[in-house]
């Protein structure tokens, strides 16, 4: 199978998988087997695309003519493969985890849950492999809509309110800001293809380009740059597997991935440096980065704290992208991976705690490390990655970001990075401390140990991945360096 053959399959598999899951809804075991088979199959297909690219055959597939000059098309390049690999690989792990979580919690409507999950992955694959901005926009919206039933899964008033904010913010930004930005680009250039070096150069300039940049920055609501971050804490009403894969990996990474793609392949680094006031984006991201951490510091609910931490971490990526130096771009890309594996571990741990003990608040965690050593051990590793301590993935990305900032002597960025590292430590370390160095105040109402084995296996595996990103960062960086090569 060549890369070009595998590309459409990467979309077809999750879509067909969702149909299969829906059909098998009556037999839970078969249904879960279908989910796992789909996830595994998808990962293999994405690997095929990767091998195709490594063999020097970048794939480009046109699915259908959509609008004049803008086909619905897919392509493979290092950045897309990276995102697709992260999303599809972690989907397998999350599926294993979700089976334990959903059954352990006796959740209702499990078929709908798995179906929507598969459709969301379909959307994420589309975003990853989109060859032009319109294709990307289409799948971006698929991702928004397919995750709505997941966010409101519980169906109570709380879920409905959360869903309203979720959909409201994401649709308002994408239709209100991103869509006009896309159409504007099309109107100026007549194309929307992602091309190395960008397509805008020579078509627009001055303050209009700044306005366009701002439309993109806020239009991609999934990147959660303040003040369009509200949807992410709201989405925490969802079951934990959803928060873990979608709101720590697929959906939010789709946001920063979109921004990175726009910066690299629509604007182009060289052109963007000429745009007046492009630094505003850096300041906005820097502000979000610090403010997100500060808000996280004051959270009492574990998942909400993780959500604000995600907001802050996403802005690392946006910030690094907007520093506009090659090393910082690499830092941004590596951080997509590093943050994904670490944050999913944290969410997995939060879900495991909930399933095992029904605890959701930080102050309840005293001494829980003795009851759930694996879970909290994984939590500790992931927390270190968030702070950026070796030997975790978070250290690698932060290293490149700082190096990138030095290339331009960007002291603002350096200051922000230092400040937020301190803040991250300020809200993650107390939890680890609580779990391992404090005694349980009173025995819990229900005696419990670790969560179901599938969940523990999943979170131990992702914690291991966090360490592996540190060890094997070399190949990752070499592979991604290609994105900086501008075609003549």
């Amino acid at each position: 199978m060549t890369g070009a053959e595998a590309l459409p399959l990467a979309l077809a598999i999750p879509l067909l998988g969702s149909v299969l899951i829906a059909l098998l809804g009556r037999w839970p075991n078969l249904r879960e087997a279908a989910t796992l088979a789909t996830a595994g199959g998808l990962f293999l297909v994405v690997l095929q695309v990767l091998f195709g690219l490594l063999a020097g055959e970048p794939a480009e597939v046109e699915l259908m003519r959509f609008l004049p000059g803008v086909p619905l098309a897919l392509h493979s390049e290092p950045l897309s493969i990276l995102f697709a690999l992260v999303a599809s690989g972690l989907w397998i792990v999350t599926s294993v985890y979700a089976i334990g979580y959903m059954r352990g919690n006796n959740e209702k409507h499990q078929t709908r849950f798995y179906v929507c999950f598969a459709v969301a992955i379909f959307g994420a694959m589309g975003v990853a492999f989109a060859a032009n901005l319109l294709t990307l926009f289409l799948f971006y919206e698929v991702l928004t809509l397919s995750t709505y039933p997941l966010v409101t899964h519980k169906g109570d008033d709380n879920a409905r309110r959360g869903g309203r904010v979720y959909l409201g913010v994401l649709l308002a930004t994408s239709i209100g800001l991103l869509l006009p930005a896309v159409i504007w680009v099309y109107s100026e250039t007549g194309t929307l293809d992602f091309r190395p070096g960008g397509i805008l150069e020579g078509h627009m300039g001055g303050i209009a380009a700044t306005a366009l940049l701002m439309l993109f920055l806020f239009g991609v609501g999934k990147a959660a740059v303040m003040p369009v971050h509200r949807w992410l804490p709201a989405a925490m009403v969802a079951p934990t597997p959803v928060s873990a894969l979608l709101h720590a990996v697929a959906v939010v990474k789709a946001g920063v991935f979109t921004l990175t793609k726009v910066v690299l392949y629509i604007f182009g680094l060289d052109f963007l440096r000429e745009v007046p006031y492009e630094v505003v984006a850096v300041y906005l991201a820097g502000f979000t980065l610090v403010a997100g951490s500060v808000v996280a510091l004051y959270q009492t609910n574990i998942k909400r704290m993780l959500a604000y931490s995600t907001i802050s971490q996403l802005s690392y990526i946006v910030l690094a992208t907007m520093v506009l130096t090659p090393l910082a771009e690499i830092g941004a890309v590596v951080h997509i991976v590093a943050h994904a594996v670490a944050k999913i571990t944290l969410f997995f741990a939060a879900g495991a705690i909930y399933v095992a003990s029904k605890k959701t608040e930080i102050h309840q965690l005293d001494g829980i490390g003795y009851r759930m050593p694996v879970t909290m051990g994984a939590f500790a590793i992931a927390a270190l990655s968030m702070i950026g301590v070796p030997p975790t993935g978070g250290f690698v990305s932060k290293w490149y970001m700082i190096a990138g900032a030095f290339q331009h002597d960007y002291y603002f960025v350096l200051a922000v990075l230092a400040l937020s590292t301190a803040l991250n430590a300020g809200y993650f370390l107390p939890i680890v401390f609580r779990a391992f160095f404090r005694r349980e105040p009173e025995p819990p109402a229900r005696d419990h140990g670790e969560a179901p084995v599938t969940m523990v296996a999943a979170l131990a595996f992702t914690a291991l991945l966090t360490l592996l990103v540190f060890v094997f960062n070399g190949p990752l960086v070499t592979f991604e360096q290609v994105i900086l090569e501008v075609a003549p």
Partner: protein
Amino acid sequence: MIDQHFLALLVVVPLLASPLCLLLPNGRLPWLLATAVAWVVFALAVFGVFRVYGDGPVSYWMGGWQPPWGIEYRLDALNALVVLIVAAIGAVVVPFAGRSVPAEVDGANIAGFYAAFLLALCGLLGIAVTGDVFNLFVFLEISSLASYTLISQGRNRRALVSAYQYLIFGTIGATFLLIGIGLLYAMTGTLNMADLARRLAEVEQTRTVFTGFAFIVVGAAIKLALFPLHLWLPNAYTHAPSVVSAFLAATATKVAVYVLLRFTFTVFGLEFSFGAAPLSLILATLAVAAILVGSVSAVTQNNVKRLLAYSSVAQIGYMVVAIAMVTALGLTAATLHLFNHALMKGALFLALGCVVYRMGGADMDSLRGLGRKMPLTMAAFVVAGLSLIGVPLTAGFISKWYLVLAAIELGWWPIVAVVLVGSLLAAIYIWRVVEVAYFREADDPARSEAPWSLLAPTWLLALANIYFGLDARLPVSLAESAASVMLGGAP
């Protein structure tokens, strides 16, 4: 014979079938006849569209009298699209009526109902195909009188008052049109559109022509329910039987938009309509008001039919603002939205028809828990609703794409903002319905899906929304050639 006379048959078949319907006994027979007629008409319309795109405009002389003395029927790219919309919606809606109408209309009036329906169909098609302005007025009145009758058939007594209000408004609008036509005739001595266009060029700068122009634009604006002349529309759509709401919402206002386009572009000509008078500015202003007022009113409604009716007021605003741009892209966007809006509003009103069939009403309360009770119906509603919002992969997105593209091309940034705000308001009012249907519990949660004879037409239109969102070549190429006809290029 079909090859020569299909244009006349398009109008004559429903016209002759209508009295025949009245002769049939109440029951299923009138419905069968109406279905057969609607499908024949649809086949003729498809044939016509292929002819126009194969060989160019088709001209037919009624009774063999040569225009400008005789009445000419003429099909070009612009009205071929309109004929296609009307005929297609008719062909989808009549099968739906088979189950829905006996439930909503007095059993003694069934034959009369279908007779009026066929007359309305005949009138709307007649407006679209005729090349004679007075003939256009006559067909306008045929379709209007038939629609007043259809609306009055609603079960609620308010249907009567709504029909009456519409009658008053509609008659004033049609009479305005008549005055305008009379003034044009006084200046040129002809009623044929093409001939009028030629002769008007000589007398363009007279006050009479300006007065005629004003009367015609206002008359058309009343019929197409342009803000602030839209007051008749919400009541009429709310209280009419579901089938009628679906049919009229998808076709009647579209045909009125066509009348406006035909007069301003073909008869008066681009330079006169938009050059001398500040029509573009007036239309754009009113359209913006329509979009905002219509959408905001829709958000506050408690009856879903009325909500959709106000949404129609807003959607008409989109079409008119696109017309006001007077560029190739703008006109493409307007005609495209004409087509797409018929699909989405048709599907939405049909889905509501299913709800009314089962629940007996369309207020928010009766929609509680329907996501579980009537999953297929509500799924169709959601699909069409997404299209109305303009979410990608639906027909509504294609409309919105062209509309925003056209506005950006002209640098009309405020219009871009208004269009997008309108979409967001649409998201709010559609989502209010979705939340009620999926998050509130029904009193009696037992599953009671609508029968397939109602679901099939509803889903046909809902799927059309997705199909034309994926593969928009057909409507886009139709709309583009319609735009080039309006701007005076070759069709």
